[in-house]
């Protein structure tokens, strides 16, 4: 069987979009297509860059580029820069540019690449891009250059994941973590842990294969200690994942309370004061609208549980049940009370259900006459942090913001980690590695011989290697498709 080389084959990667979202137009992930995009941030900078990548990059660039000094971009050497102009279809000059030609595989995407350094400003840039697109390139999807770099083996799995996280990041901190992973920080950290385990393994092996040579025997205590240290390191990483998750996915925050207590006003206030990056994200499991609010760098995914009506006891009961079930996944609960109305049995019920979670009791409408004794509130809601606010007048809102931050940072979420895990895939593998190492410790304590202990030690190494891609698994491809199916 003769397999034709990559260049001749015509194949299509149909990266399916995530199941629930249907964008109508199917994205064309044929890697044979040449793509182009503006690859500098929007705004009025001195220069802007258009990147073209793919098999026809040079040909396409050559169609729109002309120069008095350079005959044709097709003739030039790789890694050379050329001065010239971009013209549109009618032959009219769009911009004066520098063209950088990078031939495969020595470019970011490992494909033929041309970069046009244009004058900054959106008009010339857009004009150059349009010219390139009409010359045969397709507009690149966000992150598509990185995807190609990954597909072409230029970057490893954690780095690719970092790029995906970067594209999806909701906050500055999330972006920072993504960049750290992208740079290989996590890879290096995991590799360091693997090396420690390999040293332990090597020590165990020597005494096995050379029983008659005077190799120092297997020191059970020493191995136990060393493995315990590694478990501690893994624990730290696993713990950091809660923080990581919050920075990348947001803090699931639920506002509960009777109708007209001021939930919508609070939400509107938070939205107005804190720029929301994304609005109207459909919940994945529930059909409840949530809003994303960036509160001092912490993304809050706020769910408004509006809809509970108090027309009859029976209906309220159902409403409360529904609210309670929506509270199960919450990371933070804001329970709102109306100081002018008093506390209802529903308020107590909700409080009982969620008092173990971070909870803030918001006693609102302090601008109206107070019908509840503040002492009673403190007595009735001992687990909650109580804040008195008037969204109407703005009283107590600053205090509320601080309280929210403190509640989140006081729990599992904290800084000070060397590395922060942001992906569930990573956390699961770390957990797997940890349980394998716990089996080593357990066996070691029961005097299980080293050749058997090595079975579990190798399992731990395999799990850690899966994080970085050092352990090659048959489902690597699936993983790649899964990671690039986010629909961005």
């Amino acid at each position: 069987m003769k397999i034709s080389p990559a260049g001749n084959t015509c194949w299509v990667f149909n990266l399916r979009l995530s199941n629930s979202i249907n964008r109508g137009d199917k994205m064309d992930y044929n890697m044979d297509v040449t793509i182009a995009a503006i690859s500098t941030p929007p705004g009025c900078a001195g220069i802007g860059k258009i990147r073209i990548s793919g098999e026809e990059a040079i040909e396409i660039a050559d169609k729109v580029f002309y120069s008095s000094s350079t005959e044709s971009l097709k003739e030039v050497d790789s890694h050379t820069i050329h001065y010239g102009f971009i013209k549109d279809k009618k032959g009219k000059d769009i911009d004066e540019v520098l063209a950088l030609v990078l031939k495969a595989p020595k470019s970011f995407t490992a494909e033929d690449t041309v970069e046009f350094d244009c004058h900054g400003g959106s008009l010339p840039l857009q004009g150059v891009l349009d010219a390139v697109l009409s010359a045969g390139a397709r507009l690149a999807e966000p992150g598509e250059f990185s995807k190609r770099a990954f597909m072409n083996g230029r970057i490893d799995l954690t780095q690719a994941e970092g790029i995906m996280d970067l594209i999806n990041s909701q906050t500055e901190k999330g972006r920072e973590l993504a960049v750290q992973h992208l740079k290989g920080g996590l890879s290096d950290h995991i590799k360091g842990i693997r090396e420690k385990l390999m040293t332990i393994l090597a020590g165990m092996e020597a005494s096995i294969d050379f029983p008659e040579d005077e190799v120092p025997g297997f020191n059970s205590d020493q191995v136990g200690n060393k493995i315990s240290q590694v478990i501690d390191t893994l624990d730290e990483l696993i713990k950091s994942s809660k923080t990581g998750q919050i920075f990348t996915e947001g803090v699931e925050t639920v506002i509960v309370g009777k109708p007209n207590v001021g939930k919508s006003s609070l939400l509107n206030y938070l939205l107005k004061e804190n720029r929301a990056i994304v609005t109207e994200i459909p919940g994945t499991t529930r059909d409840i609208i949530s809003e994303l609010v960036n509160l001092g760098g912490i993304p809050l995914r706020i769910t408004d549980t509006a809809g509970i009506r108090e027309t009859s006891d029976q209906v309220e009961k159902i409403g409360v049940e529904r609210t309670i079930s929506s509270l199960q996944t919450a990371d933070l609960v804001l329970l709102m009370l109306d100081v002018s109305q008093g506390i209802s049995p529903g308020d107590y019920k909700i409080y009982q259900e969620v008092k173990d979670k971070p909870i803030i009791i918001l006693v609102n409408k302090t601008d109206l006459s107070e019908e509840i004794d503040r002492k009673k509130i403190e007595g009735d809601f001992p687990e909650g942090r109580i804040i008195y606010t008037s969204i109407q007048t703005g009283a107590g809102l600053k205090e509320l913001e601080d309280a929210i931050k403190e509640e989140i940072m006081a729990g599992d979420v904290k800084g000070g980690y060397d590395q922060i895990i942001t992906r569930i895939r990573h956390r699961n593998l770390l957990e797997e590695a940890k349980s394998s190492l716990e089996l080593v410790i357990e066996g070691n304590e029961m005097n299980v011989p080293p050749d058997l202990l090595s079975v579990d030690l190798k399992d731990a190494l395999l799990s850690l290697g899966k994080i970085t891609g050092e352990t090659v698994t048959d489902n690597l491809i699936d993983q790649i498709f899964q990671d690039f199916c986010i629909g961005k």
Partner: protein
Amino acid sequence: MSKYFSTYPKEYDVIVVGAGHAGSEASLAAARMGFDVLTLTVNLDHVAFMPCNPSLGGPGKSHIVREIDALGGEMAINMDETMTQIRMLNTSKGPAVHGLRGQSDKVKYHQRMKSVLENQENLDLKQAIVEDLEVESGEVKGVITKTGILYKGKKVILTTGTFLKGRIIIGEAKFNSGPNQQYPANKLSNALKKLGFNLLRFKTGTPPRVNGRSIDFSSLEEQSGEEGLSFSFLSDSLKGEQDSCWLTYSNEETHEIIRENEDRTPLFSGEIDGVGPRYCPSIEDKVIRFPDKERHQFFLEPEGRGTQEFYISGFSTSLPLDVQIEMVRTLDGMENVEIMRPGYAIEYDCVASGQFDLTLETRLVDGLYTAGQLNGTSGYEEAAGQGLMASINAVRSLQNKEPIILKRSESYIGVLIDELVTKEPREPYRMMTSRAEHRLLLRQDNADQRLTPLGREIGLVDDERWNHYQNKVEQINELREYLKDTRITPTKEIRETLEELSSGNLNQPASLEKILRRPAIEYSDLKRLVDNLPEYPAEITEQIEIAVKYEGYIERQLKQVKQFDKLENKLLPEDLDYQELDNLRQEAREKLNKVKPRSVGQASRIAGVSPADIQVLMIYLEKNKKSREKASHEGENQNVK
């Protein structure tokens, strides 16, 4: 350009060049499968000769011997029939790394194997020096001997050991020679080069042999044999009196002599350019590399029952003979010792990896196979395993059947051949248990369960072995069922017995299997807990104990195998030109083109191929699958039109 004067009238199916450990197994396997075999050896008095240690086995190596046996090979039986001592090493560790070690009687070992070859139907054993290969349009046709005869053969298996351009070095003395001063094979080496083979220069060494009459054993620690052991699954355990080995040590005086004569060591003077094995360093290497070590340990091993020669294991050296004499006499108990044969280093040509595939057939010449030390291994066991597999695959090819490629997850032989093809060994390759990632399943005690059914299918396992095997498996299953089904209740008596066996308490009724899982309990202890515990041979109860006691570990390892084999089963196209995969790094392209891996799994083990390269490969395979699917889809559409 005729290089021969006459053609031997008989045409053979398989010609084996060499009758050492690889050659003997290769010859017997093909003949036993019913094919006409010619075996040519430089010297008939050296068939299956052991030019180095008078011993077989050790961890990893004994695993291979048992695997050869399980497949119907001869090595284990030959050893059982002629050995003088047997022991089990590593018994303080888990069952997977237990390894048999046997002391052989060199002369008897040779004599018996020679006689087996002589008496084998379909096999002609002859003394001849092969100097050239007859090759027509890339296909081997036969071999040409020094005496000018062309022997025609459809397949040729080269098992030339350390004979190719063999050169012995003893201090300042150097001369062309095969091992133990036999005739070296220089012309065959040139013939291979002419055919386009890339040959490497490897080095190995051997210690001096001394006269036992001149050793004072009274001051030495004795190491005697053990009862109840054998290499072959078919043999009874070794009976009668066993010979002993003895331990001796070097001291500061020994080390001083070596340091004083460092400039006379050929390795340091750059005289030897062959690459020697790290795991088997010479005494001068040991002393110079580990200057802080106060003493080194050596084993005095008898070379056989008809001789006084003793082999000083661990004392390999290529220092000049006068230094050897001085050194040896500083060892404990050896003050007046007489050296009978000096230690020496030997350099030889071997075939660099990448030139034969997993069937051991060379890529350059169809029908030509290489096996044994020629392929860069060290050790009789590694050689024999390859000889067997090369022969099986030569025969499979004659039969137009699929080759037999043993998996890494099923055998040490599979690990061995995979690494020879994949890893470009830079020193003589020796098997170790740590080379096998699924060691716990590849035990020497279960080699028959792993490989005997395959051996039967190939046609190497005779009725005697097959019946023995089937009977064993039946008994294992029977006993396992019994242990699962038989329950004991925690009566006062039983609880007391368990206490006595220091195996804790029992509160609930439990199966015997569950009781046996307890670390302190052996099968024989169960007799005290139930009446009429069935009697089974030790080889059966051992299997049960391992299966029950290590069940959790075995299950986890099985899971690892399942994951591992998925990549082994992702096959790569044989004629893929990796240079055309632009996204692979240049080094990876070169290495992949050289090794031509059979599977993604094998590719991932090549040094210089990174996980990122594997990622590229897997994406390429996926693309290709898709484009093939697409092509076939388009084909269908055209048919519709």
